[in-house]
């Protein structure tokens, strides 16, 4: 109760605060990543069916998880920004989108790289794959919309609305895609058939997911700082900052 949230939600005070938080998240991400990589390459045993290729799971699944989590978090920030007319929330939503898109892309690419040796095809029109592809389109739409509106306040609100519409649609899309696949013909491949995961594998995936998560926070904070600098370019605090930081440039 005693914290004045409005104080922290002004860019001028949040900028240095974010600057202090970033190193912490970077460290956490590094530690989790080292632990996760250690488990994925040194501890986890070879899979008797898939051989070593299954180790892709340690980036694929966390990336797929993050791609979905980030979209939800992004829409949450967007909704908050729309409801409270809070600029910082909208900026956070904007800062998360590119990272979300990157993880979606990584899930797709690593999935394909896994699919080729396992299924013999780079791509099949499976429900999960297809809906991940559509998620990528949703991210790209959000980014493109914001990039093509010059007035930042309008860009924020338009983007937020789009993110919300997307969130309503994601489950519909997911189920329709599932239906589409099962009604036409049984897909010959079923990803659920992956072997029961040993605890070590789960551990590795969780650690990698945590690393990605911390990385996401750090990068989002970095990006939100850039957005603040660009938007408040002509405000006094940015000018002051740019002059004092000038020596380092």
């Amino acid at each position: 109760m005693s914290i004045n949230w409005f104080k922290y939600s002004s860019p001028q005070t949040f900028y240095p605060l974010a600057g202090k938080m970033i190193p912490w998240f970077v460290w956490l991400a590094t530690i989790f990543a080292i632990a996760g990589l250690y488990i994925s390459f040194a501890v986890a045993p070879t899979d008797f069916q898939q051989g070593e290729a299954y180790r892709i799971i340690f980036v694929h699944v966390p990336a797929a998880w993050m791609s979905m989590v980030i979209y939800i978090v992004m829409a949450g920030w967007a909704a908050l920004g729309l409801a409270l007319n809070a600029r910082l929330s909208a900026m956070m939503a904007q800062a998360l989108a590119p990272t979300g898109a990157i993880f979606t892309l990584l899930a797709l690419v690593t999935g394909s790289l896994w699919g080729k040796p396992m299924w013999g095809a780079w791509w099949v029109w499976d429900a999960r794959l297809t809906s991940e592809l559509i998620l990528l389109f949703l991210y790209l739409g959000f980014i493109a919309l914001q990039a093509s509106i010059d007035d930042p306040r309008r860009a924020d609100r338009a983007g937020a609305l789009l993110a919300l519409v997307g969130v309503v649609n994601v489950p519909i899309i997911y189920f329709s895609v599932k239906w589409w696949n099962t009604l036409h013909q049984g897909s010959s491949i079923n990803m659920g058939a992956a072997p029961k995961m040993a605890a070590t594998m789960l551990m590795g995936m969780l650690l990698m997911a945590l690393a990605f998560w911390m990385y996401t926070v750090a990068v989002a904070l970095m990006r939100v700082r850039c957005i603040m600098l660009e938007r408040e370019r002509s405000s006094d605090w940015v000018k002051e900052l740019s002059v004092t930081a000038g020596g380092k440039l």
Partner: protein
Amino acid sequence: MLLTQGLACLRGDRLLFKNVEFELNAGGLLYVLGENGSGKSSLLRMLCGLMLPESGTVFWNKKPIKEESESYLSNLTYIGHLNGLKDDLTALENLTMSARAAGNEVTEDKALAALAAIGIERCANLPARVLSQGQKRRVTLAKLWLSEGKLWILDEPFAALDIASVSILAAKLGEHLSSGGMAILTTHQDVAIHAQSTQTLRLSE
């Protein structure tokens, strides 16, 4: 009846104005003056609720217009820089349909009378696309003769009008004010309007 508190407007990264405050009561007229680009149109759009203020509130009958939206809007008549005419509809169709779309059930006769009042009944059946700039403006302004709202917000209503039409419009404004209406205008011209109380708000950079 219309009251503002601490209005501020940010466009791009420029603060156009801040702390704009005034009170407008029945019969009152408010001029908003300033150079090109000083934020007059932005202020009027804020008063209508088309733009959200960066900070501050607009009150109608003591309540924020956000909460009183329906009663406020049914009392408001706004005419902006844009005429809102459809090139492919005739002057009469334009006037009738825009009044009806705003929830004001007017007959064709009434609309024709309004066009006559501002002196363009001759053009009633011409498509808007062939009208001259001033004639277009007058079709738009004819809406004022049909309006039942108390508050008129007009952005440069005299622009593009010839002298005769300016005085017709000024007389209409005087009549509206003397019957207890309110009006907010921007203008770059000097026009005499008869009002009980006249205020001036000057925006500057």
